């Protein structure tokens, strides 16, 4: 199966809401996934990302709003007539069926004839590199293999949209990274429109064309991973995507604040702060740098923590009147630093984001 076999679809959600009594699980979600694009919905538990995915799959009914596939309204279409391939967190392979029977399940439901079914199963097994497991039962496979079968099963029906509901969460770190790359390879190869739900930002950033960050049922921001990281639209996005320090500060003038003995500019926040107001500024670890103790603008602290992360080491600095502040320092340089040692640092970025304290 190649790109030519499939027409990529556009998926649109227009003002989609889902209320459970007084709880707004999804609150007016607007989202467009372009043909062949992989969009990830990222957010903490309970932010509504899975509800959105389930509404697209037809497993949940939207309280209001519209769901469109290639411009056609899908709200009333039952799940079994939507042509959406879904991969679940818990694999959900049918335990009584072999790998090949699992893959051809959707084709049987569509009454595809035997020869075509067999051909498609072979193609799918090749795609996920599981040709040798054709007659195995799900319990005879590892977690990674089961998830690859689940992916093959979802793709076998040539879905309009591929839906991935935290498909890597149940796998261990090494397998997760391997399957993640495999999903992206297959998605690009087939050019299939994909909506991917995850709470793992590394996963979302690594394989998505665009990432939508959700909070309290709303889409906070949707953009390319790098743009999301460098130009977060809201304090929530800034603190949720990547590591961020929240440091107490005071507004000194419109658009300006004093933080850690330093004057900084407040970047494009929708919120307007008044002079003298206490705020928290959000600063990424890489926006802080070690300086000489003689620097007049430097903030002084004590090394309280060192976490080795490979090429970089996360250093936690205890500063009076602020929570533990984290910096990323090259692991080669960090060898010179000892826990309890006095250290000076300052903010290297001109602009920071602020939120009300």
């Amino acid at each position, binding site marked *: 199966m190649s790109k030519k076999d499939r027409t990529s679809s556009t998926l649109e959600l227009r003002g989609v809401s889902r209320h459970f009594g007084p709880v707004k699980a999804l609150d007016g979600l607007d989202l467009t996934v372009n043909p062949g694009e992989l969009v990830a919905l990222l957010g903490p538990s309970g932010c509504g990302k899975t509800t959105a995915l389930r509404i697209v*799959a037809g497993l949940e009914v939207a309280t209001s709003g519209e769901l469109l596939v290639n411009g056609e309204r899908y709200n009333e279409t039952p799940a*079994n*007539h939507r042509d959406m391939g879904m991969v679940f967190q818990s694999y*959900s392979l*049918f*335990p*009584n069926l072999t790998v090949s029977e699992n893959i051809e*399940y959707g084709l049987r*439901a569509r009454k595809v004839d035997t020869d075509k079914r067999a051909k498609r199963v072979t193609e799918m097994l090749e795609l996920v590199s599981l040709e040798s497991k054709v007659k195995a039962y799900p319990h005879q496979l*590892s977690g990674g293999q089961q998830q690859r079968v689940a992916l093959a099963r979802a793709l076998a029906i040539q879905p309009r949209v591929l839906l991935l509901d935290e498909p890597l969460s149940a796998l261990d770190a090494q397998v997760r990274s391997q399957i993640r790359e495999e999903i992206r390879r297959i998605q690009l190869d087939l050019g299939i429109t994909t909506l991917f739900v995850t709470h793992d930002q590394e996963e979302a950033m690594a394989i998505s064309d665009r990432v939508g960050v959700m909070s309290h049922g709303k889409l906070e921001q949707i953009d390319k991973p790098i743009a999301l990281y460098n130009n977060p639209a809201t304090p929530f996005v800034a603190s949720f995507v990547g590591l961020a320090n929240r440091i107490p500060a005071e507004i000194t003038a419109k658009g300006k604040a004093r933080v850690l003995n330093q004057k900084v500019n407040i970047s494009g926040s929708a919120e307007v702060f008044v002079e003298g107001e206490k705020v928290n500024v959000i600063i990424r670890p890489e926006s802080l740098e070690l300086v000489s103790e003689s620097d007049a603008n430097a903030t002084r602290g004590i090394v309280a923590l060192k976490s080795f992360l490979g090429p970089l080491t996360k250093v936690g600095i205890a500063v009076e009147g602020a929570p533990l502040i984290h910096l990323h320092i090259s692991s080669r340089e960090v060898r010179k630093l000892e826990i309890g040692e006095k250290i000076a640092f300052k903010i290297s970025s001109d602009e920071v984001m602020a939120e009300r304290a």
Partner: protein
Amino acid sequence: MKKFTLKWPLIITASLLAIFTFIVPLYGAALYSFKGNGGKGHSWVNYQWLIHADGFYPSLFTSLKLAVLAAALNLLLMVPTMVYLNLKGQRFKSLVDFLCILPLIIPVVSLAIGAQVAMPKFLQNTQYELVFFFVIIALPYTYRALDTSLQTVALKTLVEASRSLGASWTRTIIRVIVPAIRSGITGALFLTFALSIGEYTITSLLHWETFPTWTVVAAQQNILGAIAISVFSFVGAIALLSAIALFPKRGSQRVEVEE
């Protein structure tokens, strides 16, 4: 010094109790069923009497027929109901649980007379009315067998996976749910069959002749024959149990997993 534990004395006591209360009487019954005329010697005479006795085959076939129908009707009624209750009808579960326990609480006489009056006219005065009674008395057991089985599988996810692949509800139930809860269905099937084939009180109250009612009458004519009947019934039940237990189960063999 080796620590004294109660494990082995308890196992030995339990085994002895089982031997004296279960195996010895059965052995005794089997021995007596092979006694010859006048209780002397050993022969097949009691079994020969049994298979040539008036009403043996008709009553046995009636019981088998009704038991099969009751087991089938019970599954047709209970499998979709239990799937619905576990999938979408959680709030009705305690009510249905209570309703299914009622056959154990309501006296059999009230149940027989009350339910017969409520039975559709075309079923009254036919032996098939017994099928509905057998289904009712098996409800407490089938409910539990199916419920326990359904709670051990990821029902919601399996159903959602099946539906998202384009399967109808019927296909989902037959191809996914039924195989997943096979042990519960087998248990429910056996319990209904066993209860139906051995049911005496309601059948007797409604004046129908099935294998249990025929047995009571026949046993009054030949005491050793009656013992042969009980041994025959027991062996039949064991054979049925074994057949169910040995029925091949797909995908049950475990092998080494390699990444």
